[in-house]
């Protein structure tokens, strides 16, 4: 019953999408300047159908309708309601339906906002976006149908993987999707801009807000994912340079570059081609990322039920998308002529783009290189953190400096005469670095330089902001927040990187072990019964002899029933200065427990700074001039 209704809605959506494509095409050919009313109605039906189908799937998960395979495989009656809902996008089929939903919502809203703007531009955007929607709808129905039936109907579901049963992870996919699926709309708009020959400035102002929205959500999605990895995976780190993390980072670099260069286009009508290219590759990189994750050609913590047919479909779709966007783009025979003054806002923004492209190339090569070596040489290699850290870290330094000076430079041309304050701030940053250095003791030259340049960025931004706020104009607030946030982020990541401590030991109940100044006492073990799992809770007492404090930490080993899984929950005590992080795991056939105790300085600041950076984008979206 539910399955039939769901399938009806999906087929209905396909039919409507086809009609939109047809009518939009007809409408473009007609001479009148009006957009036909029926396209608005059709779009409205489309969004209604697709959202209803999504709600229907949520309904099926909430009421545990196991006649659907997707529900049977990913849910269980004994699950808390929150995780029943999160289960909707915790699997390939449901997440793809969410994907299509976001594409349709963005399409509808973009159409609504630009309805009166320029007929052929709006229609072409609608047309291209609906071709993309059609592609994903066909994919959804042909081999990832969330409304697929199972007979006989099972009485109980298999349950959601316990490590996915987590609040941060429940919101991580929707946030990330709003980011990189959202980028589809400016892909379509870029195609439309070329086809309808629209003026660059107008194109820039019509996509600007969408770029900002997707950038903000992409950032939030990445942050929430890192937070989850930090406390759930029990490893103590928050960024692994895992291929799938990289897959979310690559579109983020494009979006960051785009969010900046679109300003140049809007203001100066420069870089039109470049903005078009960025708009196109943002979505292409999003789909490429999806391909890498869903096809299973990369191994990582994000495993979906892999099926080569899916990989094949996405890859064909991706190839077609790249092919047609290239053809359309190369047909455009207009070349940008521009002259940029070395000291102007345009130049600085362009320098941001160069940095972004450098990071993008690094991460892209690191991510796909192992695939290439495997296919071409049959050699397995893995590209790990040392590669990324050593290539990316040094280039952070000039990036931070440019980021500090850029926002204050004026458009077009400026005689730069602010050397005095720059040198003052530089001296101040060096002095502060010296203080930090003498407080913490040694770290290497590179860390010194990064700390100095991030302090430079922070102080410079604050100074600019204070001077600016005298004029009572708060238009610069978002970029101030993002830039300062990024400076703080880099500062604390480097400090954290240098001063994290890790102790690894095997210990029995009742034992006390002492390493350096830390005394770790394993007091007792308790077994506790919780709502949907049993837990073995360890009680550890950590005493720092030198600093004279003590903390209790209670890590858990959880035993879930459906599906039967063991998970290891870390115990974390957070304060402004540092996190104490402890995980324990049992060792088969012995009384010993393997305990990993870590001291991670400034974790709270890292999260705070990351949110601050993302908040700038959101604020700019809603802040009017």
């Amino acid at each position, binding site marked *: 019953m539910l399955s039939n209704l769901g399938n009806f809605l999906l087929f209905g959506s396909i039919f409507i999408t086809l009609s939109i494509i047809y009518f939009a095409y007809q409408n473009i050919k007609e001479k009148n300047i009006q957009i036909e009313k029926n396209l608005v109605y059709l779009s409205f039906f489309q969004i209604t159908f697709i959202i209803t189908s999504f709600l229907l799937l949520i309904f099926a998960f909430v009421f545990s309708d196991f006649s659907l395979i997707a529900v049977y495989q990913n849910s269980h009656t004994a699950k808390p309601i929150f995780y029943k809902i999160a289960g909707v996008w915790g699997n390939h089929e449901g997440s793809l339906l969410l994907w299509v939903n976001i594409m349709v919502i963005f399409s509808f809203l973009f159409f609504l906002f630009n309805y009166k703007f320029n007929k052929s531009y709006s229609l072409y955007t609608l047309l291209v976006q609906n071709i993309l929607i059609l592609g994903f709808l066909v994919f959804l129905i042909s081999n990832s149908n969330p409304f697929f039936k199972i007979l006989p109907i099972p009485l109980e579901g298999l349950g959601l993987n316990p490590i996915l049963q987590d609040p941060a992870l429940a919101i991580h996919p929707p946030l990330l999707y709003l980011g990189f699926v959202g980028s589809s709309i400016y892909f379509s708009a870029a195609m439309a801009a070329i086809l309808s020959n629209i003026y660059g400035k107008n194109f820039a102002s019509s996509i600007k807000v969408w770029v900002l929205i997707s950038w903000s959500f992409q950032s939030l999605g990445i942050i929430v994912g890192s937070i989850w990895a930090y406390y759930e995976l029990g490893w103590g780190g928050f960024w692994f340079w895992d291929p799938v993390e990289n897959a979310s980072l690559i579109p983020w670099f494009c979006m960051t570059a785009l969010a900046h260069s679109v300003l140049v286009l809007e203001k100066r009508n420069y870089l039109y081609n470049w903005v078009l290219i960025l708009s196109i590759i943002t979505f292409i990189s999003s789909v490429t990322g999806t391909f890498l994750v869903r096809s299973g050609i990369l191994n990582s913590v994000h495993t979906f039920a892999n099926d080569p047919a899916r990989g094949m479909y996405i890859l064909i779709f991706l190839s077609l998308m*790249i092919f047609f966007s290239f053809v359309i783009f190369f047909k455009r025979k207009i070349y940008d002529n521009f002259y940029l003054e070395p000291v102007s806002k345009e130049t600085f923004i362009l320098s941001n783009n160069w940095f972004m492209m450098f990071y993008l190339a690094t991460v892209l090569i690191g991510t796909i290189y192992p*695939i290439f070596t495997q296919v071409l040489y*049959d050699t397995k290699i893995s590209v790990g953190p040392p590669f990324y850290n050593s290539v990316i870290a040094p280039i952070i330094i000039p990036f931070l400096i440019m980021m500090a000076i850029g926002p204050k430079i004026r458009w077009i041309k400026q005689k730069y005469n602010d050397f005095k304050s720059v040198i003052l701030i530089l001296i101040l940053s060096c002095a502060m670095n010296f203080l930090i250095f003498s407080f913490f003791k040694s770290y290497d030259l590179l860390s010194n330089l990064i700390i100095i340049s991030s302090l430079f960025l922070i102080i410079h931004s604050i100074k600019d902001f204070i001077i600016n706020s005298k004029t009572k104009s708060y238009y610069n607030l978002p970029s101030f927040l993002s830039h300062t946030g990024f400076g703080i982020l880099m500062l604390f990541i480097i400090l954290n990187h240098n001063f994290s401590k890790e102790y690894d030991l095997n210990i029995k109940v009742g034992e006390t072990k002492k390493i350096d100044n830390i005394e770790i006492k394993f007091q007792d073990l308790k077994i506790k019964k919780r709502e949907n799992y049993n837990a073995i809770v360890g009680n550890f007492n950590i005493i720092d002899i030198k600093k004279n404090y003590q903390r209790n930490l209670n890590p858990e080993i959880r035993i879930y029933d459906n599906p039967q899984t063991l998970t290891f929950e870390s115990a974390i005590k957070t304060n402004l200065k540092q996190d104490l992080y402890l995980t324990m795991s049992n060792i088969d056939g012995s009384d010993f427990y393997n305990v990993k105790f870590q001291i991670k300085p400034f974790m709270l600041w890292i999260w705070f700074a990351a949110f601050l950076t993302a908040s700038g984008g959101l604020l700019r979206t809603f802040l009017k001039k």
Partner: protein
Amino acid sequence: MKISFLKIISISLVAFAIIVFFLALNVDKRYSTEKIVGKSVDNFEILFLNNDEMFKKQDLTNDKYHLINIWASWCLPCKKEHPILMNLKKENNLKIVGINFKDKKLNANNFLRELGNPYDFSLSDKDGTKSILFGVYGVPESILIDNNHKIISKFIGPLNFKDYEDILQLLNEK
């Protein structure tokens, strides 16, 4: 028509990437442990534990069987299987390759000094990336390779007496 250099470069790069992706779809994923048995060993290069030289696939000589044992000083079950490795050391047609997994060099050498060194070759996989090649889930694990570089058996967890007998039987079949 003017053919732009940039166009050709970008198109061919993208086309190349897509072709590789297509090929990659058909490469079977040998990370799973069941599949690894029966396959021949991929090329590898792993650093020695106590010097800076590399041990390569070619160093697995053709006249002997090899047992690759993945271990760490912090791993208690590795202590448990240690006597069995010491016994296997006595076999003439078997060479034992120990890969020290995510460990400190000092601790590893102390471990071998205390309990005896069963390994003909001691290698080091400091960050755990090289052992992926052998489909390793955790430590200890052991992989038996025949004289044609084919993986003939895999032991997850500490070797016990039964595994010991199995290995002897496999060696004598030769």
